[in-house]
């Protein structure tokens, strides 16, 4: 028996996908080959074990397909970038349009301007200059420079002269004024001081005199009144003292009078008591 079942045949046999002659050949092979039988047995056991893994239950989520196309186009690479660049270019163009921006390139001159271009007078003025040669231009420049220099020098000299004259004038007038002022001030001050001192002296004398006069008369008056007051006071005092003495004396007199009366009364009482006793004594 030269037949040996290949791995493929064994697999097909294991899963029951062999039919007819092939199946018989494998079965025959297995009958004769114990090793292969054992291997197949093990594989069957393995299959049985694998059967323990059960399916997991799952609920199918809704699948949306219809609306997937438009975003796909939008998400195409670079499309967003290109659209955004186009949009920004459009914005720039619109702004340029509304602000009247103009960009021109003529004779190696790049010109970016806003609003309407300026009047063409400039161009007209420029053209004849170009017809002049450089020497002529140089001459013209030199001539104008010379003229300018001469005029400048004249004006400089004129102003110099004016300045000098005015400075001299100013100096002279100023010094004269200052001299006068100084003289006037010195003369005036001597006289004034003298007058002032004299008037001061006179005033002082008067003030002192009047003060002394005033003070002496006032003092006299004051002393007189003081003396009068003092005399009045002395008189008053004397009167008071006299009154006091008089009252004292009168009170003394009263006292003595009462004392006299009391003694007289006592004496009379004594006398009467003694007299009555005598008379009674005699009767007995």
């Amino acid at each position, binding site marked *: 028996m030269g037949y040996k079942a290949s*791995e493929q045949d064994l*697999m*097909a046999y294991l899963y029951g996908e062999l039919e007819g002659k092939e199946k018989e050949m494998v079965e025959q092979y297995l009958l004769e080959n114990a090793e292969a039988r054992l291997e197949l047995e093990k*594989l069957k056991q393995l299959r049985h*074990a694998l059967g*323990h*893994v059960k399916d997991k239950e799952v609920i199918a989520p809704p*699948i949306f397909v219809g609306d*997937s196309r438009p975003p796909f186009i939008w998400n195409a690479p670079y499309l967003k970038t290109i659209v955004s660049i186009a949009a920004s270019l459009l914005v720039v163009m619109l702004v340029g349009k509304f602000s009247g921006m103009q960009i021109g390139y003529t004779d190696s001159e790049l010109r970016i301007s806003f609003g309407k271009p300026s009047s063409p007078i400039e161009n007209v003025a420029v053209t004849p200059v170009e017809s002049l040669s450089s020497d002529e231009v140089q001459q013209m420049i030199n001539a104008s420079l010379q003229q300018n220099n001469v005029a400048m020098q004249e004006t400089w000299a004129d102003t110099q002269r004016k300045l000098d004259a005015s400075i001299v004038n100013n100096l002279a007038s100023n010094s004269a004024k200052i001299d006068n002022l100084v003289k006037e001030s010195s003369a005036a001050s001597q006289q004034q001081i003298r007058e002032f001192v004299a008037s001061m002296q006179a005033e002082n004398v008067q003030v002192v005199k009047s003060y002394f006069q005033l003070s002496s008369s006032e003092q006299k008056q004051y002393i007189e009144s003081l003396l009068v007051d003092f005399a009045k006071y002395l008189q008053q005092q004397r009167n008071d003292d006299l009154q006091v003495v008089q009252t004292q004396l009168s009170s003394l007199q009263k006292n003595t009078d009462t004392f006299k009366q009391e003694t007289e009364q006592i004496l009379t009482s004594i006398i009467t008591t003694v007299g009555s006793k005598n008379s009674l004594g005699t009767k007995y």
Partner: protein
Amino acid sequence: MTETLLDIAMMHSDNLIARAKEGDQGAQGKVVQLWYKRIYNFSYKFFLDHDLAMEVSQKTFISMCKNLPALQDNARFKSWLYKIAVNYCREEARKKKGNRSLPFDLVWNRDAEDSPQWESSGNRTDNPERQLQQRELADVLQEALLEINEEQREVVIMKEYEGLKFREIAEVLNISENTVKSRMYYGLDGLKKILERKNINKETIGYGI
């Protein structure tokens, strides 16, 4: 694989596909409903990641709706759809390789957080310990699937879990049927070795009974 109503509906959906091809949005929606679970589970097993699986599934169906009119043979719809899904899986896998950051699910094990998940699944009358073991086995198997290389993984998932024929897988991947079979063989062989390395055998978890 036991056939559910959904599977039967998928098998007899030629008319629906024809209408979807003509741009009937209702028909397209129904096709999505029919196939979403399959494509999601295919990509989930490919990545073991819910978010990536959702992303691949959604992309696949968006692409499907767009390109359905270009499908020439309605009978080849299934392999055509898996072809789209495989391409998106490969694209995501490339992105994932470029992205060095750690997937969040590795840091926070979501399955561990939802530990009472087994309660709601399957027969409650079963022994809970056995259910837990089976769940753990399923986790180990899925991790093992992630360890084999991408080409073999695609074939193993499509064959073992999606039930495609070797001919259909060859169509999806645009390779020969024999290549598909050898990828399948080496994929299973790899899985076997990984499980042996992890000491998963008959005795430890009771598989093969």
